[in-house]
């Protein structure tokens, strides 16, 4: 496993896709700030209270960990392509021939994909948050503990990208082809977005335990609650927020494990060409 991780990290380090992902992680925050500044300038929103409420740092920060937004959609696709290239180059075959267990090959890819996804999104998030706080007004509800909320927010972000890495790795090693991996990864993100959007419109309390089974719901909940001006669910107490956070994390863990088990099962059984 250790030697496979070494090989996969070396491959990742040498991959052009890593370089492109890092460039995008720097470019997207700059573009976002430019876009928001442009909109604010055109709408003459600077110094305007309504403008500050609509297009502020909260809005920008609230979406940094969304995997249906900007880089969030690109990163899992890149992770999937990197895994697919290992198969199409035949280097994955070399690993099996050299006596590595298929489960180790799979898990090594999963770990590298997770670290790739989390690493790139964290870089993107840091830059975006920094620029947003510099250029736009930020509002905070003083009744909420900033440190706890930031911790929830960051942990959710990291967990959601670790989760989506389990999806892209599973798809890449099941399809073993770049095109279907890209399409289904994007579709997967979109379907989750649609689910979340629909659920957010429903009074969530009666179906609370069902909605928490759906990954990203929890993340969207926290994003919207803490960093978005809409503040839809701000009436929840700190205690229930902790429960929601834990349930959401468990949801990611549960579905991430399910995806990994499905991927492992299929990958171990299939003949490699």
């Amino acid at each position, binding site marked *: 496993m250790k*030697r*496979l991780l*070494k*090989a996969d990290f*070396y*491959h990742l380090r*040498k*991959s*052009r896709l890593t370089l492109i992902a890092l460039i995008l992680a720097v470019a997207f925050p700059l573009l976002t700030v430019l876009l928001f500044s442009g909109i604010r300038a055109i709408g003459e929103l600077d110094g305007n209270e309504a403008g500050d409420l609509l297009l502020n740092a909260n809005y920008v920060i609230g979406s940094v960990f969304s995997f249906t937004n900007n880089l969030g959609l690109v990163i899992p696709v890149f992770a999937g392509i990197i895994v697919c*290239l290992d198969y199409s*180059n*035949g*280097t994955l*075959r*070399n*690993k*099996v*021939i*050299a*006596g*590595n*267990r298929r489960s180790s090959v799979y898990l090594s890819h999963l770990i590298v994909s997770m670290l790739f996804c989390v690493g790139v999104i964290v870089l993107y998030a840091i830059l975006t948050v920094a620029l947003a706080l510099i250029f736009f007004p930020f509002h905070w509800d003083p009744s909420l503990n900033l440190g706890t909320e930031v911790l929830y927010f960051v942990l959710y972000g990291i967990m959601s990208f670790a989760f989506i890495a389990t999806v892209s790795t599973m798809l890449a090693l099941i399809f073993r082809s770049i095109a279907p991996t890209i399409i289904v990864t994007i579709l997967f993100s979109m379907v989750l977005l649609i689910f979340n959007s629909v659920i957010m419109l429903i009074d969530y309390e009666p179906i609370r335990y069902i909605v928490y089974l759906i990954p990203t719901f929890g993340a969207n909940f926290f994003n919207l609650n803490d960093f978005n001006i809409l503040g839809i669910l701000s009436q929840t107490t700190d205690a229930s927020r902790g429960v929601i956070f834990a349930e959401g994390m468990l949801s990611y863990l549960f579905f991430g494990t399910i995806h990994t088990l499905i991927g492992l099962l299929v990958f171990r*059984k299939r*003949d*490699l*060409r």
Partner: protein
Amino acid sequence: MNVLTTDRLSKVYKGNFAVKGVSLHIEQGDIYGFVGENGAGKTTLIRLVTGLAAPTSGSYSLYEVPNSSREIFEVRRRTGAIVETATMSRSMTALENLKTQCYITGVEKTEEELIALIGRVGLNYEEIRRRKVGKFSLGMRQRLGIAMVLVSDADFIILDEPMNGLDPQGFIEVRETILKLNREGVTFLISSHILSELEKICTKIGVISHGELLEEIRMEDLHRNARRRIVIETDSADATEEALTADGSFAEIVKETGRVTVYGDADVNRVMWILVSKGLWVRSVNMLEETIEDHYIRLLGRGRIA
């Protein structure tokens, strides 16, 4: 010691046998030539024993460790293989690919050792040091593939069509490398359709057709049992056949267009004496021994030995 043995190994794809009940035996120090037409099942068998595909039935042992054992992963580390084509990352250089292979196999090699290995397979490091493998010719990739196999210091190397894409010089270099490594104790399983190349290096051959192993024979036995023949060209093939048949001392005489072939341990002096005494004008007499190619064709029953 048996390096690889298969016991009635079979693989079925979509209801058809790609490999059917193959039992082969490769001993330590062998250079085993695996011969068969396209689609005969050579690559499928190699994919089975390298762990890329699972057998439908039957079993195999690597270094006498059965494939059902957990230890199979350990002994697989003593194996290197190129299956169909040399596989490597096209966006990396040769040296980077070798480094990756070092990580995969858990072997520690210095950069100098890897550069020496590049040279050993006939690639000029200075020429290719900055070139991505995607820009290599097929022959260059094949050579690099062999270098990647050699990285792990494997003592059993499986090469599926290693001569593909190589120029004559490359042929010689790869052949010399195989022989050199074999002298150092490395066992080989080589599948190839270039039978003349196999004949020069193999110690044993296995002939496979339509998924079934037709024969497994040591080269010395093949040569010992090889059917010798005398090919005679005279001014009249009919008269030559008539004269030799009338003599009655030759086991098998075959007349072909413009020539007559006498099979078996015939005495060439007697043949010449008969023909000259009958007043026939002898243009040429050639004593030939069955080659691996002749043997293969005869085994498959595809044609007569020319």
